[in-house]
């Protein structure tokens, strides 16, 4: 009898207008939050939108195989290929580490003993901005790759800023002895 009463109460609750309204309000609030997020995050494609939603609920994951492939290309100094692989790995541009690597590819490709490529450095800065936007703490550290000379987003940002700056230190002949970042 008690079971029947409980089940009839549950069935009645499911048919309650108050429940319908409560579920409707919750759905509306979720949808409104999504609309506000879309206008704030400005995704540029459906892939970015899906990735952004997945990242906001903590279920976004990069393609590990493509990421490893990107790291292999990166270590072999095949920077354009590395960026393609990293782009596949993080199609929604939501993973700070992958975006950090993409920024790093621009730094290494644009770095030279006699000059730095401003266009590549500018693209690197943009990638680093994306990485920082995707990170929660406002700083990124990649300590698990011995191949990287620069380990943090702060150092990388400074390397880009130094490369883009024009001053008398550009004429210092000892600059050719600098180690590649």
């Amino acid at each position, binding site marked *: 009898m008690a079971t029947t*009463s409980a089940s*009839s*109460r549950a*069935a*009645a*609750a499911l*048919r*309650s*207008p*108050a429940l*319908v*309204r*409560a*579920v*409707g*309000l919750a*759905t*509306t*609030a979720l*949808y*409104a939050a*999504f*609309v506000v997020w*879309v*206008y704030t995050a*400005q*995704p*540029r*494609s*459906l892939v*970015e*939108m899906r990735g952004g939603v997945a990242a906001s609920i903590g279920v976004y994951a990069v393609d590990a195989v493509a990421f490893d492939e990107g790291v292999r290309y990166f270590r072999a100094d095949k920077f354009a290929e590395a960026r393609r692989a990293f782009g596949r790995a993080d199609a929604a541009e939501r993973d700070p580490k992958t975006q950090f690597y993409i920024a790093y590819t621009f730094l290494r490709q644009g770095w030279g003993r006699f000059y730095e490529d401003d266009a590549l450095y500018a693209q690197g800065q943009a990638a680093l901005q994306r990485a920082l936007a995707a990170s929660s703490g406002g700083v990124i550290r990649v300590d698990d790759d011995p191949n990287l000379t620069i380990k943090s987003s702060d150092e990388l940002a400074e390397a880009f800023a130094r490369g883009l700056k024009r001053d008398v230190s550009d004429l210092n002949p000892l600059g050719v002895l600098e180690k590649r970042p």
Partner: protein
Amino acid sequence: MSAAIPRTVWHEAFTLPIAFLSVALLGGLRIDTAGRFGFAPPPLMALVLAVVLVAVLFRAGAIVPAALVHPARPGLANASGLAIVLALGAATAQVIATLTPDGGLLTLVFDVAWLVLFGNTLAARPDRRRLLASLLVIFGAAFVVKYVILSALYAPDSSLMKRAVMALLEGVSLGGLAYQPPGPATGYVAFAAVLLYVGAVAALPQAAASAGATAIVRREATIVDSDRLAD
């Protein structure tokens, strides 16, 4: 024994807020020729015009505040009604924004035209049906001007539509009037948003329903009471 939940409850809880929020989302969507998305928040003028248009809807009886928020309604029903009003405001601003050219002198021309048209409608005090018909005409005209005529006139290529429009306008030139036409896909999204908006406004609880709103509230209370008695 529970009675069936009135359709109005489903309508207020799900259909109307979701429809208006969808318009608020789609109204700001801009898709360029490369297929990249952009989401434009409503400009200040669109917010001002939205307030005027909501006032017009109120005066014409298209929106009846008492049917959405009223002391006689339960708290959750009032919360649903408030959500509808807020979503309606956002949708109205975005529907105006999507039908107005983005930037330049044409924006000013459109904004003045909106203000005059809404002011005129407010002064004319149409009933709900006439207002909805009037909105369809106003929005339809704005859509055709922005997404068909202006897009054709400012299209970079010499398309068939551009030649047809130029022939109709007998070679008129807009001179130095700068305008960046939206991508073609934006027009389709705007069309859907405008239709959804007008449909949702038409589906708002009507003046006749406002008298019945109390009855619905009573019916909700009866359902709750009958459930308690059944227990």
